[in-house]
């Protein structure tokens, strides 16, 4: 949006010689109107006018009657002779034989024929083909087949006959090019308009910009006609008299939104005596279609046409359905309106409405109401052209989810100079095409305060200082004047010696509010390609942060351990949390819910990485992987404590205001998770298959901790979604909980269709990295010989090996270089309820070599420590 038919554009601006849709699009891009697409001509090939010379009606077995028609399509296209095996009806003359199923024509009529080689909209290529026993050498066309809509009168059920219906007034001779005749060869450029350029939602605005790009002469269509005679503009309180007098209009806004009055100007013009059967002229319908709108009726089409042309939305009321005068006001509680789309809408008090004595009749600037709709029997209309507040229209359109052609324009800002010009133009068109009469009195009311664009001070050198381009005075002043600004030069330079220009933006550019916006205008018209390339020199940086380095190291270490990083979409559901067996009171149930999720069954933000990583594991298995080793580092989200305040952005918020934002914001942490399932490596020559298991999950966390330079402790734990007896808590050296690792609960494994024994981990990644020392102390490296000692302790089965190891370390003191568990035994050799744990110890003193006596002493200390701590006995 909007769509620009080239011939329409050419009405307002001189096109370059040989201009094509592509060249026009390229010109518009250069001034900032992006090309959306180029819509090629709807019809190509030999589409010509033909005269029906003769026809015979042939009844078919299916009950249908078809016409076998002899058509004169002009010397250039006629076949010399009939095919003797398939003669056409009537006297043989140069012509073509065509089968036609329509019946709204007789010999002598001029019709539109698509000869073989024509491509109709669809695309629908036409070829000669055998049908109903004859060789049909083309097709006689209907309006719909040419992309001209449903047509008028008989042609809605048949074909186009020149001089009738939508081809009324068209005269031609056989062989004439019907593409040109009906304007079907037109290319259209569809452009994107950024929200600051509301004026480009019109041919007037786009033509102006095309002129800027090419220098082509632009004729402002808003200045090219007489604006008509207003009754004396009156202020808001003024109303006009009874019938025959101008329609009384009142502007009453008791509660402007953000200081913006809802309606600052309202023009009402009655046009009476319109022929309700008068169609819109074909060219007008054609332009509407090319611009992407549907022709409806003359009065509606005219309003739409003027809107597309000038950018001023108009509304057409059926004047006979109005009761009393017009009031523009805010809606009242409980008021409803059935809009033109037949939806009954309950209005909000903030909605700006148009009302008459019967109540609300339209949503101002958004959509009209059904009760006053101009329809097939309408003979008098009231044309409305108004200046509505962008904020008010935007809010109403949003609240009612009702974006319309009108609201789109109003919320971007409509030139306040346009209402009376647009109304006058529409009224004149109704007179011209519908035989109406413009009532002599027009109502034009305005608020006392008119929205005015403030002049902007622009130091002459400011554009250069912002763009890094040397602009001449002519560049600055000339370009601003070119876009319609009035530039006033101060008679004497300001104190600093620099000349300051006072720039008054034109009425259609409400976006020009700061000097930087003026610089953009100068820069884009001179050309962004003039900007030189200069690399800025930043002061020395500090490199990556500890967290950033740590995350990279961790993910790389896991990749090197055989895990594959994936990035899942963080949307999830209560169902997934159920599948993970997360209890109701778990913090992971305190989720963030989206108001407008993409999928209704995934409205939650994940509170656990596993909530989205396990489905990814499932997907890989479902796609045929026998095993998966996945990891993901990402954000998890928890419900915040309440509403996050929105302070003013006019100035910097206070520290307290900023702190209040962060305090209320949903808590988020960055976590690391992994899923390990199936075989580590399949069985093969190199050895037997081994499956990933709970110990691999803990090991992966250890790899991550090592990579981050952090120490972690592993203790027995229990939490969903893990196996209750095979879960490790991962804690920092200080004992803070980081997360969990272990085998998944069999029900979870089943829910996600993973291989048996599938294991997983999830830890707080940033906390892990932050637990690492910021600086590593090296410590001495002893070169003294090592002493190796083995121990086996019998302890209760519920005593963790890590506790025994910890007790040994206490007993052995600094001399212990390492203590490693190498065997765990339960069975006949130890008492019921007991187990044996065997440790290999390496002793390495820092001071002097250990003698036998010292070693014996250390052994005893370890044995005593284990005995004291957990009653463990050295195994005999």
């Amino acid at each position, binding site marked *: 949006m909007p769509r620009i038919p080239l011939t329409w554009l050419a009405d307002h601006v001189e096109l370059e010689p040989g201009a094509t849709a592509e060249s026009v699009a390229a010109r518009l891009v250069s001034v900032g109107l992006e090309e959306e697409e180029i819509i090629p001509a709807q019809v190509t090939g030999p589409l010509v006018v033909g005269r029906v010379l003769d026809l015979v009606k042939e009844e078919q077995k299916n009950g249908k009657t078809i016409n076998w028609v002899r058509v004169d399509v002009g010397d250039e296209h006629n076949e010399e002779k009939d095919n003797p095996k398939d003669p056409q009806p009537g006297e043989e003359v140069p012509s073509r034989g065509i089968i036609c199923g329509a019946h709204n024509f007789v010999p002598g009529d001029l019709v539109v024929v698509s000869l073989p080689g024509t491509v109709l909209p669809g695309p629908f290529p036409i070829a000669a083909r055998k049908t109903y026993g004859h060789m049909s050498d083309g097709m006689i066309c209907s309006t719909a087949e040419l992309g001209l809509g449903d047509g008028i009168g008989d042609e809605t059920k048949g074909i186009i006959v020149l001089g009738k219906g939508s081809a009324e007034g068209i005269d031609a001779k056989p062989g004439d090019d019907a593409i040109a005749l009906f304007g079907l060869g037109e290319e259209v450029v569809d452009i994107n308009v950024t929200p600051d350029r509301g004026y480009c939602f019109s041919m007037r605005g786009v033509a102006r910009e095309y002129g800027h790009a090419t220098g082509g002469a632009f004729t402002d269509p808003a200045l090219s006609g007489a604006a008509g005679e207003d009754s004396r503009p009156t202020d808001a309180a003024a109303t006009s008299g009874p019938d025959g007098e101008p329609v009384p209009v009142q502007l009453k806004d008791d509660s402007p939104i953000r200081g913006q009055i809802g309606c600052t100007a309202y023009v009402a013009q009655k046009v009476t005596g319109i022929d309700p059967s008068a169609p819109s002229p074909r060219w007008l319908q054609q332009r509407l279609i090319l611009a992407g709108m549907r022709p409806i009726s003359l009065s509606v089409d005219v309003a739409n046409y003027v809107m597309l042309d000038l950018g001023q939305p108009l509304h057409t009321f059926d004047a006979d359905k109005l009761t009393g005068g017009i009031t523009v006001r805010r809606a009242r509680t409980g008021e409803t309106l059935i809009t033109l789309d037949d939806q009954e809408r309950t209005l909000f008090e903030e909605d700006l409405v148009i009302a008459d004595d019967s109540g609300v009749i339209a949503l101002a600037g958004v959509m009209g109401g059904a009760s006053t709709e101009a329809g097939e029997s309408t003979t008098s209309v009231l044309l409305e052209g108004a200046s509505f507040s962008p904020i008010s229209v935007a809010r109403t359109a949003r609240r009612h989810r009702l974006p319309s052609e009108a609201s789109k324009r109003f919320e971007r800002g409509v030139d306040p100079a346009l209402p009376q010009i647009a109304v006058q133009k529409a009224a004149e068109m109704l007179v011209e095409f519908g035989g109406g009469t413009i009532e002599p009195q027009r109502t034009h009311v305005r608020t006392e305060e008119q929205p005015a664009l403030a002049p902007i001070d622009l130091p002459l050198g400011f554009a250069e200082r912002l763009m890094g381009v040397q602009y001449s005075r002519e560049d600055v002043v000339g370009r601003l004047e070119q876009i319609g600004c009035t530039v006033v030069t101060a008679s004497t330079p300001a104190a600093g010696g620099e000349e300051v220009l006072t720039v008054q933006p034109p009425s259609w550019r409400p976006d020009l509010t700061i000097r930087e916006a003026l610089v953009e205008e100068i820069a884009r018209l001179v050309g962004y390609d003039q900007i030189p390339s200069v690399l800025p020199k930043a002061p020395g*940086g500090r490199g990556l942060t500890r967290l950033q380095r740590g995350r990279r190291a961790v*993910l790389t270490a896991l990749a090197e351990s055989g895990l594959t990083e994936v990035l899942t979409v963080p949307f999830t559901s209560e169902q997934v949390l159920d599948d993970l067996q997360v209890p109701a009171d778990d913090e992971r149930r305190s989720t963030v819910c989206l108001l407008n999720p993409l999928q209704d069954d995934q409205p939650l933000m994940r509170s656990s990485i596993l909530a989205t990583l396990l489905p990814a594991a499932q997907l890989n298995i479902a796609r045929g992987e026998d095993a998966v080793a996945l990891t993901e580092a990402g954000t998890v989200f928890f419900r915040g404590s309440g509403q996050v305040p929105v302070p003013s952005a006019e100035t910097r918020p206070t520290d307290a205001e900023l702190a209040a934002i962060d305090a209320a914001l949903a808590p988020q942490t960055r976590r690391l998770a992994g899923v390990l399932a199936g075989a580590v490596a399949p069985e093969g020559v*190199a050895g037997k298959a081994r499956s990933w298991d709970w110990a691999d999950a803990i090991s992966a966390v250890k790899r991550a901790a090592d990579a981050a330079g952090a120490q972690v402790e592993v203790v027995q734990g229990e939490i969903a979604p893990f196996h209750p007896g095979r879960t490790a808590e991962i804690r920092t050296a200080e004992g803070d909980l980081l997360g969990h690792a272990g085998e998944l609960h069999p029900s979870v494994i089943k829910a996600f269709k993973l291989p048996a024994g599938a294991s997983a981990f999830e830890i707080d990644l940033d906390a892990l990295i932050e637990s690492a020392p910021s600086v590593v102390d090296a410590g001495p490296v002893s070169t003294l010989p090592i002493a190796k000692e083995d121990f086996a302790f019998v302890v209760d089965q519920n005593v963790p090996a890590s506790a025994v190891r910890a007790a040994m370390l206490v007993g052995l003191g600094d001399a212990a270089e390492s203590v490693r568990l190498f065997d765990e035994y339960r069975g006949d050799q130890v008492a019921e309820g007991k187990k044996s744990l065997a440790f290999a110890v390496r002793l390495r003193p820092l001071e002097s070599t250990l003698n036998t006596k010292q070693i014996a002493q250390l052994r005893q200390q370890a044995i005593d420590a284990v005995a004291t701590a957990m009653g463990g006995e050295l195994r005999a």
Partner: protein
Amino acid sequence: MEKACDSVSPTQEFPSEQEIRAAVDAALAAIGQASSSAELKQVRIDHVGDNAPLSIANRGIRDLPKEQKAAAGKLIGGSKGQVQKALAERQQQIAAEELEQALRSETVDVTTWQDRLPRGARHPLSTLGDRISDFFVGMGWEIAEGPELEAEWFNFDALNFDEDHPARQMQDTFYVAPEGSGQVLRTHTSPVQARTLLERGVPLYIACPGRVFRTDELDATHAPVFTQVEGLAIDKGLTMAHLEGTLNEFSRAVFGGEPITRLRPSYFPFTEPSAEIDFRCFSCDARAGIDHDADPACRVCGGTGWIEMGGCGMVNPAVLRACGVDPEEYQGFAFGLGIERILMLRSAVPDMHDIVEGDIRFSQHFGTEI
């Protein structure tokens, strides 16, 4: 020993020099013929053992008249040395041959090799993100981060998105329940710029990579979650020329070649003036310059010669004011690029689904390098 000595007859005649040389020659010949450690051991016994002629002769020296002892000692010593040296050399030779043979017998078929660990990989988006971060760090910029679920104030208000301006509606925002929570999933990483400006002040040169969210259905080229990197430089005297220079350098680093960057006028609430960024296609003939035509079938630029990369502009003074920076003193630029798009173009990724679905085969194309 005693016995062996005794067995030598004192009356036996001391061998002649010729006989000694013959014994040496016999020993050297035997050493040369020995082909294994075992054979060489026998040769050692036969020729330098207690009963070998040279050993016997050596013991005979003590019985020679005093004036002959020196010459005989020199002859015998030299001869024995010669034999021992040959033995040692042969021993080393045989040991090497035998080791060689032993190793040969241990030959394995190395092509039966198998991975002991599955191949791991980083996700290419994170590797590419790291690489892009490194580019900025290399210029002295820093990498800033912020929350993915963001306060509306940071995502919109601080960035000059008026609450009623259509630009705010065009962001396709995910809103956090309940209505009026004041929170959204950030639609861009620009709120990080605002946070960092507020926290660190100016001058500031930062890049902000991160995940962002828009209500776009997942299809071949769109995803509701994607990755952006934004740059922000605020200092005294920065101009749009510095923006152009930075983008050129970025293009050179990521796509290689001589960069050609085209800026097109556009609109963003947080920049004024604003521009869309196009890079000259790095893939087809268009890379040679704007006077070279693009390949009409080019998969990277679609035959246009240009790749749309993102948006940029000079930071709007309203943003600077909201972040406590005096726009009369400082100005700067900002830009935003999509990392998925860069990845898809650089590595010929055919479909966005591959990037977001979590199929390991996608990440495994890349390993830990990009």
